[in-house]
């Protein structure tokens, strides 16, 4: 009897683990590669056009997406749309809130980062002084979420802006990332 209980317990535990393993294997099955993947000559698709794409990020392989770069072509980044910290805008299709939440949840956030799928751009709004530190924090956060280098960050389509009620001096200007060419130096 004792042995039957022990054996039964082990079998049940094994069956549970196997079932969980099957479920995990199914849920993490890789997405199919896009048809043009075999024609890639490099990680960055340098086509010769600068037409603004109007589609959502292109899935390249599991955990990665391609977004437009500022000078044409595309960049491969982590699939941030699957990140648990990202909030899909409930009112505006194709808008992903990468930092700060959505709507009134953004009230006290030091910076807001929104991805707009229509032009595959990132909008970073600095909401707290000192702006230099807030910008550094936002840059670090975005770099970690996208999993790209500083160099690649400079190639994104992005704007770093400051609303007028945060700073009249810097509002309305694209400050750029601090480490990118042409960035506005902040005190």
């Amino acid at each position, binding site marked *: 009897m004792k042995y039957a209980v022990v054996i039964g317990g082990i079998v049940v535990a094994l069956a549970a683990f196997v079932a969980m393993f099957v479920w995990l*294997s199914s849920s993490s099955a890789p997405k199919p590669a896009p048809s043009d993947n075999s024609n890639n000559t490099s*990680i960055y698709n340098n086509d010769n056009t600068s037409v603004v794409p109007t589609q959502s990020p292109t899935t390249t392989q599991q955990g990665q997406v391609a977004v437009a770069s500022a000078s044409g072509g595309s960049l491969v980044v982590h699939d941030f749309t699957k990140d648990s910290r990202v909030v899909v805008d409930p009112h505006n299709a194709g808008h992903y809130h990468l930092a700060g939440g959505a709507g009134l949840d953004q009230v006290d956030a030091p910076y807001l980062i929104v991805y707009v799928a229509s032009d595959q751009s990132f909008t970073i709004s600095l909401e707290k002084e000192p702006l230099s530190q807030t910008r550094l924090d936002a840059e670090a956060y975005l770099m970690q979420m996208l999993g790209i280098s500083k160099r690649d960050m400079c190639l994104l389509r992005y704007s770093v802006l400051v*609303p007028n009620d945060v700073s009249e001096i810097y509002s309305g200007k694209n400050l750029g990332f601090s480490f990118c060419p042409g960035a506005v130096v902040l005190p």
Partner: protein
Amino acid sequence: MKLRALFLFAALFLFAPQVHAQSATCIMQATPATVVRGGSFTLKWQANVSAGTITGVGNVSSTGAINLIPVNSTRYVGTFQAVGGTATCSAIVVVLEPNGTASPVGDAVGTVQAPGTVAPPAAITNTDTMAPAPVLPAGSTLTPNNTKPTGLIPCTGLNCQACDLAALAQKVINFLLGLSIPIAAALFAWAGVLFFSSSAVDKLDKARSIFTSVLIGFGIVLGAWLAVETVLKTVLDPTYYKNWNTIECVSPTRRPMGLTINDLLSSLPILNSNTPAPPISVGGISYNAAGTVEAGCREGDAKSTTDGKCYAYGATEGYDPVPASQLNAPKGDCSATALASSWGDNAAAMSCITQKESGCVVDRPSQSDRSNIDKTVFSSGLYQINISANYMQCDGFNGGQKVDCPRAFNGRNYNSTIADQERYTQCINMANDFGCATQNAQRIWNTQGPRAWSTASACGL
């Protein structure tokens, strides 16, 4: 008892995880993408299958990196196969001559060369070939090469390192795991033979004992593996986690071998003055150093300091960089494209206003327009519409009927508090909806003019 054991054993294999046929994908990168002749670069690749081949390198695992010194500009092509298909990916490294010209790009051929051999033209050469072959003891059968051993021993003697001890231990564990299956099967068979071949009580008891012991033992072996796999797969990021029962040691040859003392010194924080590398000259045109991000140029391309055009290395034709005004132009919801269809000739003006008002965040709650009493936000969205002072009306909300938003408040502006939470929430949602907010902003523009926004004057309006 014997039927029960057989049934349980069969059930275990019935619930074994299904193998999903998957398509192969791969990605490859050469860093840096341009080297001066004799310099080295790192070729990195990542695929979602267990192995593949890369021209000029040979058979590779799913993920890896190798340090190479190319003879000429070379294109490396990786091929990775899975049940669901084949993926190819490639990377190009450009070799610059001492005079600055770039050698033409050729396809990599062959595999990484063993030390002492002569590399064919346009083939890649592993850094091992730069060092003379070591002298081996007489009678030794070991030869220094980069072929990966396939047996239990993960190295071939001269290329062994401490990591290989861990890899050896892992291989032994994997071997024993595999060995446990035929052993369990053999013991079950023996127990079955005992059970069927005798009616003596002690023999039957022995058979039962063997069944029980083997079942428990085999269950523990499988359970241990499954438990570790399940926990790690659940906890770890799938982007980085492949499997835990394989240890891959980085070959010593993958350590940077092509660096100089100057490279080391320039990487130290005290000695690194962060000054940009001096320009290089290619074909009589001066470029900024390779690896510099050039505003307006495609990734990897350089900007000529002679004519300001962007050039791919080795290219004789340049192209105009994307103008700064376009690079710095507002993106997303403040872009001219997003606003043009609604605002027409006023799109530029409204682009300026929205950048200043909301930082182009479509649902931004105002930092300043908040009640002095309870900090209730009364302006929100791309246009920062003040809902304590303006009604809202648009398609898609309240059946297109007007929503009297000031009635959501007791008081107005900084003296307001929420009187009707449901109405307040509806009005905030309308102000945060791009389409609805745009319709109402246009109405405000038409009735009150652009000066309804305090930032209009800063936009020249």
